[in-house]
């Protein structure tokens, strides 16, 4: 399925979820379809750590629902993250693994073992139980309510098999934020949603 159209379908089903994107194309795609500047944290250049970041946030604020995107290039750098995710088994966290079989941010260079990597099997082998795999937007939309079930018993892992960005898609705008600006935009939004005090210190 087309990468950007897949993200557009996910964005249509979003209600109040907090989003964490990864290094690579996922930040571009999410910004392109949402232009969300407060409830999405574009964790650029964070190879393999977007879902660990999301796990920390989900652990800290159980009432927030967190969707975290990660490319399979990032996943291949640190698949053991799933051991930590399984140990935490946070029901308010959904890990979307965006599988395009390439390093999308670096000219679509191919991944090692790209034709054989079975991400769903890897997740199941690490003990994850809520594992879903989609290669069409129709199937994704049909089962989306299952992914986001309010009474999910634990962590959800979703593999999205998408096409690599085209040359034109590679030119999509990057989220236009300074890192510190994004921290405060996002943090103030989280503070407002749950009534917590993230930054504390005042001049």
């Amino acid at each position, binding site marked *: 399925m087309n990468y950007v159209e897949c993200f557009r379908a996910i964005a249509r089903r979003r209600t109040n979820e907090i989003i*964490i994107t990864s290094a690579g194309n996922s930040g571009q795609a999410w910004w392109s379809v949402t232009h969300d500047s407060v409830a999405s*944290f574009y*964790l*650029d*250049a*964070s*190879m*393999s*750590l*977007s*879902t*660990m*970041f*999301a*796990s*920390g*946030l*989900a*652990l*800290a*604020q159980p009432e*927030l629902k967190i969707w975290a995107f990660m490319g399979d290039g990032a996943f291949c750098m*640190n698949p*053991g*993250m799933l*051991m*930590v995710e399984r*140990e*935490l088994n946070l029901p308010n966290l959904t890990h979307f693994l965006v599988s395009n079989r390439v390093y999308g941010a670096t000219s679509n260079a191919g991944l090692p073992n790209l034709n054989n990597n079975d991400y769903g099997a890897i997740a199941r082998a690490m003990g994850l139980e809520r594992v879903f795999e989609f290669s069409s937007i129709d199937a994704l939309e049909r089962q989306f309510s299952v992914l986001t079930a309010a009474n999910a018993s634990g962590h959800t892992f979703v593999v999205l098999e998408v096409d690599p960005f085209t040359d034109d898609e590679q030119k999509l705008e990057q989220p236009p934020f300074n*890192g*510190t600006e*994004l*921290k405060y935009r*996002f*943090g103030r939004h*989280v*503070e407002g949603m749950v009534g*917590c*005090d*993230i930054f*504390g*210190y005042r001049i």
Partner: protein
Amino acid sequence: MTAKLSPAEDSKVTDKAPNTAARIADELASCGVKLVASLPDNWLMDVIETIKRDDRFIHVPVNREESAIGLCSGAYMGAMGSVALMGASGFMTVIYALTKINYTYEIPLLLLATLRGALGDHHKHHVSNGLYLLPVLNAISMPYQVIDKPSDIVLVSQCYRHTRTYSRPMVVLFTRDLLRGSHS
């Protein structure tokens, strides 16, 4: 990232302070730390075991040190206090994560690590840490505080609070004498 002490080397530790780990835990709790993400180093095992048993903390063993950086940084954005606990060798693997996440977004983070390769460390495989750990910290302009005696454990909470003012990471480096006791 875990070095294994031989029984002979363990026997050289003669006057290990029994309450060092508990005092470190108390300092962390005093400044609001809830999440402790760790990868072990033999010198840190008392601290890790103490924290695992302590209901004031959520202890999360991680698969690699970079995961601790991501986890604790996300916890900060959810207003949960945290520390990342690791050995010196593990610290040397997290420079990318620290500079990309904690420097770019100015996300505070306290790390607790071991001052491997310094006086008293018999392990030749830690010579590289003795040579390069502090120069690497200086190269990335990352503040650090060496703690080598029990009376300085109070500095742990000061360092934690400093990260919140400074909006960047810093590391506390524990010596062998502090964690394992002085040598015979």
